[in-house]
């Protein structure tokens, strides 16, 4: 005990070590909280704006949107979906009439998960637009799923009943056919599969056409949304 104490006398006391670290941690914590608080509004606004832009892109003629979730057996509008809760976005025109759903879907692509958003009109059972939100497909080949305008245009009026089929380029004959991309068949088929799977997953839960929940928020404003 005494030997230890003598040895420590040369070195700074443990109290001093603990205090140094504590003060450093405290100052660092305050700095981090400060930067978090001051950037949070911009970050959330950016994210919301990105989402709105994507929704408006896949659902032509839409000027407002709200998040819809499936709770207690029916689709309800919520201001803020819970974390990890499956969600679709209802799109509404200027008069507040329902236009269609923007449905997020994700699944494995050639390299990594592909996350996408597609616009769906329940009245016509058609996909009217598709936007890739996230993908790490091979540059130059697989990335044509969003860089190739022809491929993206395939999804502007596409039947989902019966399910979408990716066919060899130039052989599409049916309304539910998509021309695959030469050299990137796997990525193209992955996109089709993701849409099919998302459609099936939601098919039972979406209400009959015409009975969608009305728009709950303020009529169209160009704010960044909540």
């Amino acid at each position, binding site marked *: 005990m005494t030997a230890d104490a003598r040895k420590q006398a040369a070195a700074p006391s443990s109290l001093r070590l603990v205090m140094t670290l504590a003060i450093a941690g405290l100052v660092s914590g305050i700095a981090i909280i400060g930067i978090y608080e001051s950037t949070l509004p911009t970050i959330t606004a950016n994210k919301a704006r990105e989402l709105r832009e994507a929704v408006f892109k896949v659902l032509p003629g839409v000027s407002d949107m709200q998040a819809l979730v499936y709770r207690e057996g029916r689709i309800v509008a919520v201001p803020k979906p819970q974390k990890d809760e499956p969600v679709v976005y209802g799109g509404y025109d200027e008069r507040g009439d329902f236009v269609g759903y923007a449905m997020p879907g994700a699944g494995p692509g050639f390299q990594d998960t592909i996350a996408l958003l597609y616009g769906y009109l329940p009245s016509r059972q058609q996909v009217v637009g598709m936007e890739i939100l996230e993908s790490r497909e091979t540059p130059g080949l697989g990335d044509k799923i969003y860089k190739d305008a022809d491929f993206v245009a395939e999804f502007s009026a596409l039947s989902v009943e019966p399910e979408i089929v990716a066919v060899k380029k130039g052989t599409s004959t049916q309304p539910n056919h998509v021309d695959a991309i030469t*050299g990137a068949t796997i990525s193209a088929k992955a996109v089709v599969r993701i849409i099919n799977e998302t459609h099936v997953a939601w098919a039972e839960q979406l209400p009959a056409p015409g009975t969608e929940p009305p728009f709950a928020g303020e009529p169209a404003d160009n704010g960044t949304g909540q």
Partner: protein
Amino acid sequence: MKQRDPDLLLFHAPLLRQGMTTPKAMRDVIIALLPATGASLWFFGLAAALVIGSSIAGAVLAEWLFADRASRGESLRDATGILTGLLLGLTLPPGLPMWMAFLGGFVGIALGKVIWGGLGHNLFNPALLGRAFLLATFPIAMTTWVSAHPEGGFFSVYAGNLALPFMQAQVDGVTSATPLGLLKFEQEVTPLTNLMFGKIGGSLGETNGVLLLLGGIYLWLRRDLDWRIPVGILGTVVIFSAFLGLFDAERFPTPLFSVFSGGLLLGAIYMATDPVTSPVTPRGAWIFAIGTGVLVMLIRVFGGLPEGVMYAILLMNAATPLIDRYTQPRVFGHGIEKES
């Protein structure tokens, strides 16, 4: 070099001085490849000459550029650069721009051989390394297969061949998928006679299986190649695909289809047997060959790519030092139980 006493194995390389030298062996391989090269000229016309010529030019230029001033002539005389360029050229699609073929040859020698310390020190087959680089760099051009016999006869070339350096190739003429591509993506089986005599889409050298086999037999007669490697690879592929055929004959390729489609013959006979990048011991050669065969089938059947010969050989190249290490024969006069 015949094996007489089963307990005393003689290997090539450092044991005996004999008439066989590197330039001679290389020349033999080039001679063995001539029929297949001629066939590629016959099928694809002048385009074949342009692509193969550019890849040889790239390989030789790299060889010359990076050689020591003292050994410059030497490294050109042993013809390994020419052979690498020729082998690479035969694995390229006929419509490939000449500048890409040139780049492939250059990279193959520079990154595949020179950087390791020159001939005999490289871990990977330079021609395949060049091809792997091209495939990763220009995936579209490297998988655009034009059909044989360009319209204007022998002297016409594909527009793609003449693309300016660094510029894209215009795709012209009819593109046709390779038999393996057809099988994988369209579930279409190509007739076997077409496979054997070359009426198929594919790279310059892989379209005529029979001529490749003839060249292999010539090399075997000249004792230039370790017969265990091609036999082991082809045997493994045949057994593997026959085995798969037991489960679902419709979905999986037949053994003969597996052997004659894609670059398997070219790879098994001319590339896997590269003495520098394959094991020297007989046991090692068998391990190497079987491993390559299994990898080829795994990639072809279960992988995302239609063809896997290149990656299979490169992967086994990487394993070669290890195989050599574990298959060293007992040193004469030393005990069995104690490893030195």
